[in-house]
């Protein structure tokens, strides 16, 4: 994972230690503004603005590629208390386009802390704003839906030495492309393939199975969770072809999470159909769930304000058990809940599908399972990081699917057989 990209429309003017100005302004597409103080780098950033309700795991959130081109509002007021360390990031860099918090820590305190979050944000040029009423902002986004926004601080607040009129900020925000219709996968995917060998109890042993993971914005915990269960994981760029996949002789194929609108992911959908056509066991997470949905012929749609947090209840409809899940998605699959349905695509070539998991807060499709081919996926994040480990059984289910040669994942590794490793990390 050596990807390095330029964050869009980001003009950092602050280097560590240098303070240009204290003031910062958050401007929403609909004209609402919030005044606060500059946090992290100063400058300008514009992007879609979303909120995350997790009370822990800011470092994982910041480095989750799915947040590419999004300004993230943390609803938890104190951010940065535990500083930053080199173990917890989910990728090689911070992906969020901007960061909105209420009370940034003045001092980090944790035995694993290696530096302050503020310095990290400055170092990576992430423009943020602090000391605003994040709850008022969240309520607004909940009612009005996600929208575009901009954070402006330092020189960006001025034009020719004078304060800029609000209209000019709003205009700048409105000039930012909307998330709908954007294919951002290429911007976050690894450019070169790499391998994660079996870990933990399986380290140094012959892999139980070989998995090809297509990186649509993968979090580093995902290959780790697979590797901990004895799998060798080939992580390959999103632009790969079916030939690239087959060349690795995989026992199964995995599509990761990632940013952007699934309806724009034509290459990925086509690639997955090739995988399914060959009968290769498939497991997808998040974006990988939406790609499966589209490959099967279902539509996807944008949620009003998405699901972003680590307390989302999801029911496994097969076992009726509830798991508390980590989620980060703005789009969802439009599939019928509660009944088996033929996959609409290709005149039934993929057989029957059921919605396997559903979000209990708002009945959103949170998982799909093919009944006649070995493919399943979930909309949420069983790899957690940040978040609870309740859904870790799904990695076992994937391994079982590959091992058993079953025609589908139905009945494999139900939640009751959760085998969460005693020691995560």
């Amino acid at each position, binding site marked *: 994972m050596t990807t390095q990209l330029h964050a869009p429309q980001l003009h950092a003017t602050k280097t560590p230690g240098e303070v240009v100005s204290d003031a910062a302004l958050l401007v929403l597409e609909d004209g609402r503004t919030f005044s606060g103080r500059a946090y992290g780098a100063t400058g300008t950033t514009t992007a879609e603005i979303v909120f995350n309700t997790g009370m822990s795991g800011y470092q994982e959130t910041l480095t989750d590629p799915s947040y590419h081109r999004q300004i993230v509002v943390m609803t938890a007021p104190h951010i940065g208390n535990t500083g930053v360390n080199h173990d917890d990031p989910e990728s090689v860099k911070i992906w969020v386009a901007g960061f909105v918090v209420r009370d940034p820590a003045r001092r980090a305190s944790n035995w694993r802390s290696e530096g302050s979050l503020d310095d990290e944000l400055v170092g990576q040029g992430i423009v943020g704003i602090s000391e605003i009423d994040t709850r008022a902002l969240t309520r607004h986004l909940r009612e009005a839906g996600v929208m575009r926004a901009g954070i402006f601080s330092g020189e960006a607040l001025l034009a020719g030495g004078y304060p800029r009129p609000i209209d000019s900020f709003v205009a700048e925000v409105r000039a930012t492309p909307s998330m709908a219709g954007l294919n951002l996968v290429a911007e976050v995917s690894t450019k070169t393939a790499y391998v994660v060998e079996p870990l933990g109890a399986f380290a140094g042993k012959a892999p139980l199975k070989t998995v090809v993971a297509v990186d649509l914005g993968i979090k580093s915990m995902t290959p780790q969770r697979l590797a901990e269960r004895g799998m060798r994981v080939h992580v390959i760029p999103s632009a790969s072809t079916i030939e690239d996949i087959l060349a690795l002789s995989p026992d199964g194929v995995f599509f990761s999470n990632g940013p952007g609108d699934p309806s724009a992911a034509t290459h990925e959908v086509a690639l997955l159909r090739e995988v399914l056509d060959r009968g290769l066991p498939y497991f997808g997470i998040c974006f990988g769930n939406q790609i499966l949905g589209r490959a099967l012929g279902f539509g996807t749609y944008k949620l009003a304000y998405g699901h972003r947090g680590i307390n989302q209840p999801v029911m496994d409809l097969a076992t009726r058990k509830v798991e508390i899940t980590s989620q980060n998605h703005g789009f969802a699959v439009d599939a019928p809940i509660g009944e088996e349905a033929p996959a609409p695509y290709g005149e039934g070539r993929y057989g029957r599908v059921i919605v396997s998991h559903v979000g209990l807060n708002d009945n959103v499709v949170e998982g799909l399972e093919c009944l006649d081919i070995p493919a399943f996926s979930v909309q949420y994040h069983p790899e957690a990081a940040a978040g609870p480990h309740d859904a870790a059984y799904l990695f076992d289910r994937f391994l079982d699917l590959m091992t058993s040669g079953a025609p589908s994942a139905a009945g494999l590794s139900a939640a009751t057989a959760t085998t969460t490793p005693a020691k*995560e990390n």
Partner: protein
Amino acid sequence: MPRRTDINSVLVIGSGPIVIGQACEFDYSGTQACRVLKEEGIRVILLNSNPATIMTDPEFADATYIEPITTDVLTSIIAKERPDAVLATLGGQTALNAAIALDEAGVLAKYNVELIGANIAAIQKGEDRLKFKDVVTKCGGESARSVIIHAIDEAVAAAEDLGYPMVVRPSFTMGGLGSGIAYDEVQLRRIVGQGLHYSPTTEVLLEESILGWKEYELELMRDKADNVVVICSIENVDPVGVHTGDSVTVAPALTLTDREYQNLRDIGIAIIREVGVDTGGCNIQYAVHPETGRVVVIEMNPRVSRSSALASKATGFPIAKIAAKLAVGYTLDEIPNDITGSTPASFEPSLDYVVVKVPRFAFEKFPAADDTLTTTMKSVGEAMSMGRNFTEALGKALRSLDKSGATFHWDGEAPSGAALEALLVTIARPTESRLVQTQQALRGGASIEQVFDATKIDPWYLDQIQLINEVAAEVAAADALTKDVLTRAKRHGLSDAQIASLRGIGGTRAAGESTVREVRRALGVRPVFKTVDTCAAEFKAETPYYYSTYDLETEVRPREREAVLILGSGPNRIGQGIEFDYSCVHAALALKGDYETVMINCNPETVSTDYDTADRLYFEPLTFEDVLEVYEAELAAGPVKGIIVQLGGQTPLSLAQRLADAGLPILGTSPEAIDAAEDRAAFGRVLAEAGLPAPAFGTATTLVAAVEIAAGIGYPVLVRPSYVLGGRGMEIVYSEEQLTGYVERALGEVARSGGHLAPILIDRFLDDAMEIDVDALYDGEEMFLGGVMEHIEEAGIHSGDSACVLPPVSLSEAEIARIRRSTEAIAKGVGVRGLLNVQYALVSDVLYVLEANPRASRTVPFVSKATGVSLAKAAALVMVGHTIADLRASGVLPLTGDGGTLDLDAPIAVKEAVLPFKRFRTTEGVAVDTVLGPEMRSTGEVMGFDEDFPTAFAKSQAAAFGGLPTSGSVFISVADRDKRAIVFPVKRLTELGFEILATAGTANVLRRNGIPSTVVRKNSEGRGPGGEPTIVDLITDGKVDMVVNTPSGQGARADGYEIRAATTAADKPIVTTVAQLAAAVQGIEVIRDRPFTVRSLQEYVKVEVRP
């Protein structure tokens, strides 16, 4: 999975009297459980001995038993009611222990009753330290290295391996009773000795010290489908070594990364599954090493706990309510989240605010007690607050304590040099003052590292306290109070009073505070109110549960209906506890139909702060500033009828005048009338006009005046500061020397706090008087006499500590008529609209008025339970304009008669106080003296209810502690003046077969009256030449079954002290007045005769309405 169809009736066990470690949080949880079960159509049978609880109101259960929580009583109830199941996980350790005893006695099996919530195996796995250790290991966790021992010698041997300091924890005790930290062998022997005694299984766990580690708690819930959720994480600011009940705690945890938090969560989920809590909640405590992150699981409670009440209030997720639903078969996903109305309970709350809980202590009541905070809980209450950040929440929490010296200050010079060095040593010992001392040390320039080394408080919190100091310095140094300065100060929790003090504004505290408020308002710096919504604004909230903060947007909903604001009573303390919350809850229930009820309170343990109680809940400090802001926010939301201040005790009452001055409509008794009752001169005029006698008294503000007044009145005199509740600082003084000492102490305190001396009241002390307590209701025209209570002990013992009986068993109709006339005259003269409590002393046929309080009293719930009339509900209705005639017509009050006209066959109720002496030890480890006096020291009460006085008294004793003995030996040692009076009752004891032990003097008197007794050695005499034991040795060895020791008038002499301390430590009944001895003997006769019969409140009511 819908609810089970095989459960149609459930016996709920309550937690009994309020004691340290087990307070009104169990009324909150039990009330929720009863409500839920009733809604489900289940017949609810309830046992609780505590009459001051909402749960024991007859409408919350189908059969309410206010009886002692003993195996015998439970067996009788089960035999009579034949419940399908017993729910014991919501009544604290008392209920859990009662359930275990029932199981061991084979009662559950005999009557085929299922224990729901947690089964016996789960309770034992969770509570038995050795079994729990195995559980932890199985779940991939670690425990502190430890050994279980059953004898002191084993403990000494174990020290070789574990080393000192060592933690001592007895099995199966609550609130950490009997536990402690031993730094050497002497301490080890003492603590283990006590621990073995308190443990019902004579078992103590010794473990390696994890002192100074970070401490965390998780609140988990599990349903029968094995779904587990974590409701809340709680971080203790005080590191391991201070009981979590005594720690400043924060929710959510603020200094853990996600990986570390998820590790605790994984271990917790594995533990709740392994222990086998099938349906309900549990609390798990962890220690985390600050430098390595090593995690040690400390303990778990397989039941609803104090922490779960805190977590419920902190998150808006009602753990007890959900636990009750889970117990009858629902799964989490089937239960809606009340707050959002749209999402299920199978989720984990997300907070977008910070919650801080601070404990409230009562060491001033126990001057001899060691105030070091240890693993034994010593606090008597707590306050919780919410803010959008830690500094704001902390500032609000500290001022919620309603205690001088509890808040941060910047008075005087900052400590420096040697003073700072000394402070850094002081803060290494955890006490109730440590947080303020820490703030002072940082203010004086100590580094965060230095303070961390001394306290092990996480540097993040220390930095936040430093931040508060910095903001304070900015406020002090600012050229003017600008909008920016004020906004920053308020965002970090500084009160108007603190800002005034920093700026040196105003002559008095109140004036300075007002000036700051005016400036602040002129600049538009006002708080907003946010909603506790369980979900960090992800979903719309339906329930108006608010807290204030300085932020952009307010969420108070507009309303059409007129609002009534009810001020609660704040943190529990001795003298102001659950009884006042009871009245506040009743007001909310009574007014809900006609008004929008708005509760303001900051006590997380209570029913009043359940979002289901009032229509709106503001979780706010009960200070002038905070109450005023809530009022204005509500006034902006819609019309406000007024504010009720007379139900929450002294805290709201003391705000009445300032609130009225600020233009707030006070409902009921006016502030002027309140003053007329509290101001001695004004009250004297009321009494004089009505021709009512009062003991001679005077008011002094100097030593000279005090001595002069006392000489005029004649010793003994009763002295106290004016305006206090619970008799704080009240003493009986027998000589000028004692008086001088008292006044000098008071002056010294004044000098330290920089205030001015409140007037000292000096009353004639009425020796040998019978004290009478009256609760009445007055509407301006008519009086309703709620109840007349006769104290069992004589006057001089605080009414809150005294046992009393209702109806009065020895007052004539003429005396009651006189009490009625006097009470009415006072109500009228003072100008009461609502409740009035009057204390009388009857001496030689003269009825003296001791004092009158124009507010709900501590006895209102007791009177209401005993007579079946809800006085507090009626009072709330009177305050909004109803007349007593109205209330009689509408059925709120009986159509005719009142508490002064009870039938001769009306049941007898005895209230007995429960005292916390066991909790408090001197620094030498000796129990503090147990002698009662005019200063109140009890934490709670029980009620004994039966057809006659002796049975009711015996029940009250059984409920308050182990109960009266039926055989064995009684030790008698009384003051000279009491010697004549004890002859008859002691004779009766010998007739009942008791062996009488006495000291030489008492034995002589008994012998001359023909009563044989065995002379035992006084403690001061030491053991005899042949090793003959002293009385203290006999008591300690468990050879004495009851102790009668009336202290001599001149205060507790050493012998008496040792005797009472040993008796308390041995958990044996102790009688300290002659009157109490008479009642005890009658009670003993009853229980020797037959077991208690049980009868529900509902059955008594049936009897009463029979024509």
